[in-house]
């Protein structure tokens, strides 16, 4: 009887079933709250022709950037990809396709995908290149565009604490896209800093209920900081 025990013991087991041409939805914002070990596992598996839905694509050599090195990604759906030289190269050479999506629209597309809402209307992007080719419609005196939801074959998520049932909480702003990503994958894998006793999380404080989660793996994290800015110590803050 496995019941609701979703803990897997190896990264191989965590990403089992991932194959070429699949779509992966990844949590994280910049390098904050990214499933580092799951990304490494995808690199190790060397699956190619992937579509990756993620707000950013890491940096050269870290985060999702490592998948660019092996040319595993065919298409990125992101809001901002300005941090990687490799990204730029592959885009210019035509090896990589990018679908730029406003950050809020991207977050909502993931949420809608997980929530069984196939499409919604938003004012974001109306009258801009983002709206081109999309249906527009007026509600009241304002114009909106229709955006369709996204779902993935896999979702890879980074949480702070999880129990074996897959109930997750996120730490500080490492929450970001992780809760929506968790809902939008056919198979959702959560890499977690700490596995806690089932029943020890307050039910009302759980950010991601375990029903969305298929596999949980305990990882170790480098947690690289992209822009360490300090308050001037000579100031009175």
């Amino acid at each position, binding site marked *: 009887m496995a019941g609701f025990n979703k803990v897997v013991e190896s990264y191989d087991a965590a990403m089992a079933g991932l194959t070429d041409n699949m779509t992966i939805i990844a949590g994280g914002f910049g390098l904050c709250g990214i499933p580092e070990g799951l990304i490494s596992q995808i690199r190790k598996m060397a699956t190619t022709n992937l579509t990756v839905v993620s707000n950013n694509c890491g940096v050269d050599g870290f985060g999702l950037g490592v998948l660019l090195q092996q040319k595993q990604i065919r298409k990125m759906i992101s809001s901002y990809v300005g941090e990687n030289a490799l990204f730029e190269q592959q885009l210019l050479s035509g090896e990589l396709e990018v679908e730029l999506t406003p*950050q809020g629209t991207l977050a909502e597309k993931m949420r809608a995908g997980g929530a069984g809402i196939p499409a919604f209307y938003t004012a974001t992007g109306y009258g801009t290149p983002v709206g081109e080719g999309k249906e527009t419609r007026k509600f009241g005196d304002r114009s909106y565009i229709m955006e369709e939801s996204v779902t993935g074959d896999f979702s890879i998520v980074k949480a702070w604490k999880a129990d074996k049932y897959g109930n997750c909480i996120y730490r500080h702003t490492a929450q970001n896209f992780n809760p929506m990503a968790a809902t939008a994958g056919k198979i959702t894998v959560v890499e977690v800093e700490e596995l806690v006793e089932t029943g020890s999380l307050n039910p009302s404080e759980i950010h991601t209920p375990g029903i969305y989660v298929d596999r949980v793996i305990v990882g170790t994290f480098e947690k690289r900081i992209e822009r360490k800015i300090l308050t001037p110590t000579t100031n009175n803050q």
Partner: protein
Amino acid sequence: MSLSREQIAMRVAQEFSDGDYVNLGIGIPTLAANYVDKDIEVMLQSENGLLGMGPYPTEEQVDADMINAGKETVTASKGASIFSSAESFAMIRGGHVDLTVLGAFEVDVSGSIASWMIPGKLIKGMGGAMDLVAGARNIIVTMTHADKHGNSKLLDSCTLPLTGVNCINRIITDLAVIEVKDGAFHLKEKAPDVTVEEIKSKTAGKLIITENTPDMSF
């Protein structure tokens, strides 16, 4: 003399009202947080999922899990809340943020803005800018009045790909405070020691000037 970055930021800070929820873009807008009137309180929203952004951390406070929308290390202020990016943009898109301040390449007389893409240059992405300009109740652009070649950034119609249409209420430049309404730029204030003639010459779009334009005061 045209304003320095810090002076523009100081003038931006005068737009804040007590109790405002404000989203500040990268660059000059972020600087404005340093000049909030001591008699008022504002809360800063960071679109990755933080309401109540505090100062940058000390070395001891640095935490990889605590960053702002510019991916910089940051702290949370008293009364802060932290949430998902979907919730963050629900807040933005739903019109709950009182004021957004952001930079731009161009603004036109209809209040449309171009700020994210220059054809021929590599595209980095719009991030949250399109959501912000479609969502906030009041949107202020900060930028230099003209580019480094002297070409006006205040146009009758934007030439670059748009970030949003009919959404900008106010522009604060190194030369002037401009209100955007009824299909024209309205000169409200000018930088001290800058002439109305200079502003006129650097504003390509329709500009409406009333007598005795006041100087900005700091």
